[in-house]
C-alpha cells in the first residue's frame, strides 16, 4: 500500500485544531475564576518540557508510532499491555468529546431531539474521515482553518464594546493555590491530550519536523486559548466558570446596532469542526492501536465497528450534563495524568538509555 505523508503545515494545523477544539467552548481553568488566564499561561509553560519529550520520542524512532515504540522499548507482552491502556485512553477521550458535542447541541440548539441523533451523525462523519486516512483528514482541516481563525477574530473584534477590563481585577485575588489547580486542569485538559498524536504521527516528512510541529501547534493554540479566556472573563466576569459553555454565552452578548446579532452560531460552527478533528484523531489512534495489537493487515477493516462502539459508549458514559461537568473539572485531570505524563516520561528515559547503549553493542 502507498505510504501516507502529511506536510509540516498540515500537521501544525491538526495539532492546533485538536487543542483549541473543545476548549474554545467548554473553557478552561474554571476553578481559578477571574485568574483563569494566568493558569492558562502557567499551563502552557509547564507543557513545554513534556512537548519536547513527545517530539524527542517521535524523532528517536522515525516512522514508528507509540505502539511500535512500546514493543521496541519494553518487549512484546508489556508493550501490548501498555498499548491496551492507550487504546482505552484514546477510545475514552473520543467518547467524551463526542458526548460534549451532544450535550452542546442538546442544550443550545435542539432541546427536543434525542441526544443520540447528533452524536450518531457526527460519529458517522468521523468514521468516514478515518476510513479515508490521515491525509484526507489533515487536508480537510487545512481548508477550514482560515475560516475558523477569521471567525474567532471577527467575533473577538465585534465583542470589544462588551469588554469590561475591571472584571480582570483583582489579579491573584483568590490566592495562588486556585491558580495552580486551574493550571493543572488546563494542562491536562487541552494541552497534554496531544499525547494521542504520538500514535498517529508516523507520516511526518523529516526527523526534525515533530519538534517544529509540536512547538508551533501548541504555541498558536495556546495563545488563542489565552486570548479567548481573557475575552470571556472580561465579558462575563466571575461568572465565566459557572456556565457550561462560556464562549457561547459571551458571544451571544454581542450586539452591534440592531442588525448584527446572534453571532454565537458562528462559535458553534468552530466548535463542531474542532470536535470533528478531535474525535477523528482519537478514533484513528484507537483503530491503529487495535490493528497493531492484533497484527491486522490494515486498520481500515475495524474502523466502522470501533466508531460505532465509540458512539454507543459516548451515549452511555454519563447520565446528565451535571455529571459530565463534574467529571471534566474534578476527575479527569487526575485520571489522565498517568497516560499523559508518567508513561511517556518513563518510555522516553528507557528509550534514551537503550539508544545510547546501542552503538557500543554494535561495535
Amino acid at each position, binding site marked *: 500500500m502507498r505510504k501516507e505523508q502529511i506536510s509540516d503545515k498540515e500537521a501544525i494545523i491538526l495539532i492546533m485544531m485538536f487543542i483549541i477544539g473543545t476548549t474554545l467552548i467548554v473553557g478552561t481553568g474554571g476553578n481559578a475564576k477571574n485568574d483563569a488566564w494566568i493558569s492558562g499561561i502557567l499551563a502552557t509553560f509547564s507543557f513545554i518540557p513534556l512537548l519536547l519529550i513527545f517530539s524527542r520520542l517521535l524523532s528517536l524512532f522515525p516512522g514508528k508510532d507509540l505502539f511500535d515504540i512500546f514493543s521496541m522499548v519494553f518487549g512484546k507482552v508489556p508493550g501490548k499491555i501498555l498499548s491496551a491502556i492507550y487504546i482505552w485512553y484514546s477510545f475514552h477521550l473520543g467518547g467524551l468529546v463526542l458526548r460534549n458535542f451532544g450535550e452542546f447541541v442538546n442544550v443550545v440548539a435542539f432541546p427536543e431531539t434525542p441526544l443520540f441523533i447528533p452524536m450518531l451523525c457526527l460519529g458517522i462523519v468521523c468514521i468516514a474521515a478515518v476510513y479515508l486516512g490521515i491525509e484526507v483528514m489533515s487536508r480537510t482541516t487545512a481548508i477550514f482553518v482560515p475560516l475558523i481563525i477569521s471567525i474567532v477574530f471577527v467575533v473577538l473584534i465585534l465583542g470589544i464594546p462588551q469588554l469590561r477590563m475591571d472584571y480582570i481585577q483583582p489579579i491573584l485575588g483568590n490566592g495562588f493555590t486556585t491558580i495552580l489547580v486551574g493550571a493543572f486542569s488546563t494542562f491536562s485538559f487541552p494541552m497534554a491530550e496531544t499525547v494521542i498524536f504520538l500514535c498517529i504521527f508516523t507520516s511526518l516528512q523529516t526527523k526534525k519536523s515533530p519538534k517544529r510541529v509540536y512547538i508551533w501547534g501548541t504555541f498558536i493554540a495556546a495563545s488563542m486559548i489565552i486570548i479567548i479566556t481573557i475575552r470571556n472573563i472580561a465579558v462575563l466576569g466571575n461568572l465565566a466558570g459557572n456556565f457550561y459553555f462560556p464562549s457561547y454565552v459571551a458571544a451571544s452578548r454581542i450586539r452591534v446596532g440592531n442588525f448584527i446579532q446572534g453571532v454565537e452560531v458562528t462559535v458553534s460552527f468552530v466548535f463542531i469542526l474542532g470536535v470533528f478533528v478531535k474525535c477523528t484523531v482519537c478514533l484513528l489512534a484507537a483503530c491503529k492501536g487495535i490493528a497493531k495489537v492484533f497484527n491486522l*493487515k*490494515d486498520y481500515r*477493516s475495524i474502523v*466502522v465497528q470501533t466508531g460505532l*462502539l465509540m458512539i454507543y459508549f459516548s451515549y452511555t*458514559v454519563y447520565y446528565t450534563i451535571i455529571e459530565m461537568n463534574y467529571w471534566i473539572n*474534578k*476527575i479527569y485531570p487526575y485520571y489522565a495524568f498517568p497516560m499523559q505524563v508518567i508513561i511517556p516520561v518513563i518510555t522516553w528515559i528507557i528509550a534514551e538509555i537503550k539508544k545510547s547503549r546501542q552503538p557500543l553493542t554494535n561495535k
Partner: protein
Amino acid sequence: MIIFVIIGYTFLVIFSFIPLYKKKLWSDFWVNSILGVLSFTIAVLISFNVKIPSPAKPIANLITSIFGK
C-alpha cells in the same frame, strides 16, 4: 427502533464482513466480528432503553478515594 438496528447491521455485514471473508484475512475478520457482535449487543440494549453500566462512576470513586474531593 430494533428494526433500524437490524437493518443497519445487515448492511454492515454485507459490505464489511463478507469482503474480509472472501479475501481470507482471518485475523481481520475475527477481530472485526468480535467487535461487531459487541457493538450489536450494545445497540440492541440501547434500543430497548436498558441502562448500561458506565465506567465514569467507578473511576470517579477510585480517584476521590485516592486524592480526596
